[in-house]
């Protein structure tokens, strides 16, 4: 299936990389800035879910935000 080819290629590349001795180019001792709390994707999950819920009940778009909500918010 043509649509599947890019995924198959990407998968093979990743599998090859996974079987090699890939060395991390950012060493663990170089990750102090990345470990800072301000670099977290979502510091407050409940708050992020609440804002997602508000948006999903007023917009047609949904998903791919990294958090989930519930309910319909129909009114």
């Amino acid at each position, binding site marked *: 299936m043509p649509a599947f080819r890019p995924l198959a290629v990407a998968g093979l590349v990743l599998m090859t990389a996974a079987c090699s001795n890939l060395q991390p180019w950012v060493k663990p001792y170089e990750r102090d800035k990345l470990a800072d709390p301000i670099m977290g994707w979502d510091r407050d999950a409940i708050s992020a879910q609440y804002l997602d819920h508000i948006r999903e009940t007023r917009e047609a778009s*949904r998903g791919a935000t*990294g958090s989930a909500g519930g309910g*319909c918010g129909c009114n």
Partner: protein
Amino acid sequence: MKVAAVQRILGRVAAVVTLLLIRATCADVLPDDRADLFYSKYSGGGMDITGDSVAVNKKFTENIAAQLNYFVDHVSGASIDVLSQASQIRDERIQKSAALEFVHDKTTYTASYTSSIERDYRSHTASIALKQDMFGDLTTLSLAFANTVDKVGENNGTAFVPVIDWLGHAQSRSYDIDWSQILTKNLIAGVNFNVITDNGYLANPYRAVRFLRAPPNLAAGYQLGSQMYPDTRTSTAIQGEAKYFLPYRAAVTGSFRYFRDTWSIVGKTFELDYTHPIKNIWILEGRFRYYTQNHADFYSDLFDYAGQYRFEARDQDLAAQENYTIGAKATYAFLPNGWKIFKRATVTFDASRITFHYLDFRNIKYYGLPQYQPGTEPLYQFNATVYQVYMSIFF
């Protein structure tokens, strides 16, 4: 894209990912124990919603943790659609969720269950997720699947004496693949991909279509009628995001999400966020968000006559719109040296202002004024404010 094709592709990607998971070398760790108390208030578009929540995240061993969350929404007022049909609402939504996390080597497995109950709406979601760190912990790959079953009803009584008519069920399946990648000592990026398939009763019972009473004579006015929705929908969303640690201690985050679905809706979301700590006591955050979408292919603000098309909707969520959000958040850290069993604590105040502009959804509250005929009323727009206050205690 057909549902079967999406599921087949996701199945093959999952098989590839499973092979990748073999490379685990040292253990991942679960987050700290914490408890959160949360209060929120939303005001806008004629509605007031307050929310209270309590959440607990507790590790039982170094490998197993549980999360519990209880959330209550109180809704009062009514949106433009409900106002136009002269009924007010007062409702409560109770959401309960529980999750169990298990860590083995570099893999985190999560299973969760969420129920969301309103008197006219019931939703139950079960989900499983898997997160894997790899390539020297530079890469984190997450896979998730969620199955949701909804029961949809309509209150045909009053706000205080409800009479619920149950209209049908809907099932939703959500598939997520998230990739997070450390690129440099200062830069981390991510790609999130999501597919959701729905089937069943997908309409909102509190919305109505309107059509001309005696077409093409506008002066004769309009009538309201029932919406007719397709009973299937598949949506695809992909988001790219990047977070950069600035030369001084602050971070900037940018993201873009592209969404499309089988109802011909395309949505685009841009977000920019700036986070600035002050010593180790305050974390200040400012953010801007812009969202735009076109309308669904079966949406119209005004149909020519009843039953003009097989599917018809006049739900403002399906109209073309754009909205802007400006938000600010301040987090204050206290108990830096801990107290009894508590290691530290934070309190956060968050405020957002959202401006909604609808591009083909008209404000029918203006109908009846001499200068407006059906379809010529001003476009609907409103502002909303969202406040959140929450305290997090780490122990």
